Structures are given as structure tokens and as C-alpha cells.
């Protein structure tokens, strides 16, 4: 029932996210697939099937899609359990006969489910268009892009979800999460650029999982995927610890 309630309350944001995602995928996939990367466009060389797929998946899903899924995660996370404190509905919720961890995890999984649907539709549409244009389908490339987007989105969503619980406010949680995410993307970029120190970066992770499509010979970065999945799961776990001890 709570899953339904979460869906009922966030469906507007979900549908908006989905529409934008679909629009972006539809708008950018065809030119990128036809003309390849900007470098290829400069040289006037038509891309091969594999190059068309790689360029489209990396640019459309890894670039635009990655940014969008992070934003969707931020928005959906701010509408999670933290908002219940903000709106003072938490007293009603916590007097329903369920353990508090139930509210944390059901609320969290509703958002992850929505993100996964957005990623699935986006990846499905992009790969469908690519298959239509090239006559080929690369199962692992599609799966990699889907996993990269879903886990990346889940990290930004979980962070916002947790911060909203910490601050007991959806809006404040969103603000803090945006700041943290910005720093988390900026700092590894700076350390890598200036000092050649490579820290785990969410942006790199999403880029890498999509980039994997370009480097067919390289192995899929499972360890990084697991690392970021653990990060995504750590936030609701921390939120549970807080909520179970919270005075309402």
C-alpha cells in the first residue's frame, strides 16, 4: 500500500522525467547514429555499425541521459520519506502497524523502481532506434547502459533520500544532496586532472559503463558497478538507522 502511495505522490515527477528522457533519446539518437561522434563528423567519415552504437549510447545515454537520470534521482529522492517529516504526515504513517524500516525501504524502492523504468524506457528507445537504423543489436551494450544509468540514478536518489531524512525536509535534503553531488563529481575530476589521483567518481562510473560499449574488448567494470551499488544501498541503510531512533 505504501508503494502505491509513493507512486501516487511522485507520479507527476516520474512522468515529467520520463517524457524529457524520451524526448532527449529520440532527438539525439538519430543524428549521432547517422553521423557518429563530433570527430567523425569533422572528418566526414561515416561510422561503422559498432561506432554508431558506441557514439550514440555514450553521447545520448552516458551524456544527456546520465545528467537527466541524476536530476530525476535528486527530484524523486526529495519526495521520499524525508518529505513525510516536512509535511507532518509522519505521525500518521508511523502509527500504521509496520516497523519503521518498512517505510524506509518501501519508500526507497518505489523511487528506485521509477528510476529503473525511466532508464529502461530511455535505453530501450535508444537501442530500438539504433537497431532500426543499423540492423544490429548489442545485448551487452544495452544492458551495460541500463545498469550504469540505473545505479548512477540510484546513487543520487539515495543520497537525496538520506539527506531529506537527516534534515527532515524534502527541499533541504535536495539542496544538500545537490551540493554533495556537485562536490563528489568535481573533486575526483580535479584530483585526476591536476594530480593524477583517481578517486571513485559517479560521473566517471556512468560514463565508463556506457563507454564500455565502445571498448568491446575490455571487460565490463563489474567491481565499479558493485561499489556504486553498495554506495546506493548504504544511504537507505543509514536512513533506517536514523528513522528507527527518531522521535516524531
Amino acid at each position: 500500500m505504501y508503494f502505491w502511495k509513493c507512486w501516487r505522490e511522485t507520479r507527476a515527477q516520474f512522468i515529467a522525467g520520463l517524457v524529457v528522457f524520451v524526448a532527449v533519446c529520440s532527438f539525439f539518437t538519430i543524428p549521432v547514429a547517422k553521423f557518429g561522434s563530433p570527430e567523425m563528423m569533422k572528418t566526414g567519415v561515416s561510422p561503422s555499425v559498432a561506432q554508431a552504437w558506441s557514439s550514440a549510447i555514450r553521447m545520448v545515454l552516458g551524456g544527456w541521459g546520465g545528467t537527466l537520470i541524476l536530476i530525476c534521482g535528486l527530484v524523486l529522492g526529495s519526495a521520499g520519506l524525508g518529505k513525510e517529516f516536512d509535511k507532518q504526515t509522519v505521525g500518521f504513517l508511523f502509527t500504521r502497524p509496520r516497523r519503521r524500516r518498512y517505510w524506509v525501504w518501501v519508500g526507497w524502492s518505489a523511487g528506485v523502481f521509477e528510476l529503473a523504468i525511466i532508464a529502461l524506457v530511455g535505453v530501450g528507445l535508444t537501442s530500438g532506434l539504433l537497431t532500426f537504423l543499423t540492423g544490429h543489436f548489442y545485448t551487452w551494450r544495452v544492458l551495460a547502459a541500463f545498469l550504469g544509468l540505473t545505479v548512477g540514478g540510484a546513487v543520487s536518489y539515495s543520497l537525496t533520500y538520506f539527506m531529506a531524512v537527516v534534515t527532515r525536509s524534502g527541499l533541504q535534503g535536495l539542496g544538500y544532496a545537490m551540493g554533495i553531488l556537485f562536490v563528489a563529481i568535481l573533486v575526483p575530476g580535479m584530483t585526476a586532472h591536476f594530480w593524477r589521483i583517481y578517486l571513485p567518481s559517479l560521473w566517471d562510473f556512468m560514463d565508463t559503463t556506457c563507454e564500455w560499449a565502445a571498448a568491446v574488448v575490455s571487460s565490463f567494470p563489474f567491481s565499479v558497478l558493485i561499489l556504486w551499488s553498495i554506495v546506493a544501498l548504504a544511504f537507505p541503510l543509514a536512513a533506517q538507522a536514523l528513522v528507527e531512533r527518531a522521535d516524531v
Partner: protein
Amino acid sequence: MKSLAIWTEGLVKFYSDVKAVDELSLSVPRGVAYGFLGRNGAGKTSTIRMLLGLTKLTAGNGAVLGYKVGREQVAILERTAFVGENKILYGNLTARELTRFTRGFYPSWSDDACAKYSRLFEIPMDRSFSKLSQGNRTKTCLLLALSQRADLVILDEPTVGLDPVAVDALLRILVEDVIGAGRTVFISSHNLSDVEQIADWIGVIDQGKLLLEAKLDDVKSTFRLVTASGNGLPQTRFADVLSVTSVGKFSRYLVKHDADIFVAKLSREGAIIAEVSPVGLREIFLELVQKEDTCTSGNAGGKPALNSLLGS
């Protein structure tokens, strides 16, 4: 303990350094209406929140329907319906959607009761909660609680925003459908006349301490308000005297029982007895929390204050 709907022993709640509840020991029998009374900030809501697991106990023990507070919270919540003082639900859900949401949590939920109460309260079931009036919001909260058919119904200020017709309907439901079915009502309200209409038991709390817990009928039949004048009259609470209020030579005593013996004692000490009167819930409440009954507008039926009695 199992025979009681609510039992607490030495319940304490601190918020930082503020003691909201102070060694509170309650015994609420099953199948009765229990009026839990107190002034603003007396500790009523804190007590309820502790019983429901919304806030943790600082010290003490408690049980609801035989289940330990803090340890068997889900079992307590399965059998307890609650309407809090803040009647806030999800603004974009309609009353119908709210019932659909709530129904799934309670095996004892009754769709028939829900339909009956929604008709009785005349709730616009397809309007968003945020667009409902204050009264209809309260009614929606009551609908969700009453349709659960819970063994214990805890109501914190349930009549706020309700018109007299709705109040009357609520009190009838509580008496006929809840107490009549052997279930328990624990009602916290400032509206003493509403509580007086249905309560079998009352508990009066002030500054976190329980001042009185008794059957309302016993209170009405044995408690007396004794007004006397004289020099050197006793000014402190003792034995059966629950409260003393004095102005000049006049003193007013709330006597628990055996008022005749107390009056005789005062007379022997040279006091002139001005009045010995039975008391209603309002007088008991005001005497216990040491507030003068000023007989203001809206205080119909209230006993005249001591000052009024003296003509000052």
C-alpha cells in the same frame, strides 16, 4: 496488566531538560471510555506519543492491550486506532484514496463501517484532503480510525473543528459502536462537556503528574466542593482533600469522599460552612489544576467562582 487496555508505571519523558511526563502511572480498564484531561502542555500528547511508539520513553514501563510499549509496537498499532491532535494527512489524496491506503494495514478493517461513517459524517470522499475544510479533515481522520474496528481507540482532541451535529454523531458512534462492542476509548480533550457525556473513567494530569484517576460516577457521587469561612482553616491538601483555594477568610476544598465528616471537623474548628455542593467534571478539573472558575461566557452550568460567591 492484561486486563487493562493501557497500563503505565512511572512513565517519564524528558525533552532536553524539560520534564514533560513525570512518573505517570495510568490504569485504563478495557471496555470503557477514559477521559484523559489536562491543560495545554500538561503531558497528555507526550504520553499518547509514548504509548504509540512515536517517541521513546525516558524511563518507566507501559503496556497497551497487554503488549509492552517500545518492544511490541507493531502488535499495539495493529489493535489501536489513533487520531492525533494534528489532523494532517496526504494533501493530494482524496478521502477515498486515504481509506484505500489505510485499509490494507488492518485485518479488522470494516468496509461497511467505513461506508456508514462516511455517510454519517457527510465526508466528500472524492475531494483532495488539502481542499477539505478543517471539520471535514477531522472527520476523515476519524473515519480512518473508526473503520479499523480496533480494540483501543485513542483520540487526541477529536472534536476540533467539528460542528455540534458532527460532535453528537461522533459521541454516539463512540458509545454505541465502540464502547458498546466492548472496545476501549481513550480520549484526550479540552472539551470537558463532551468528555463528561461519554467517559466512565477520568484521569487528570498536570505538569506531567497524574492528579486524579477515578470512575466518573464515583467522582460525581462522592466528591464535594466545600466552601467555608473562618480563621486558621487548613490550607494544605491532606487525606481526602484534593485541593484548597483561599481568598481572604474564605477557603474552598475539593473533598474526595466523606465530606460530612470533613464539614463536621471544620465546624468544630470554628469555621462557618457557606456551601457544600456536588461537583461536575469541569469543577473537578479546575480545582485540581488550581484555576479559578471565572464563570465566563461559554461556561454555562459552571459553578460560581469563589470571588463571585463572595460578591467581590
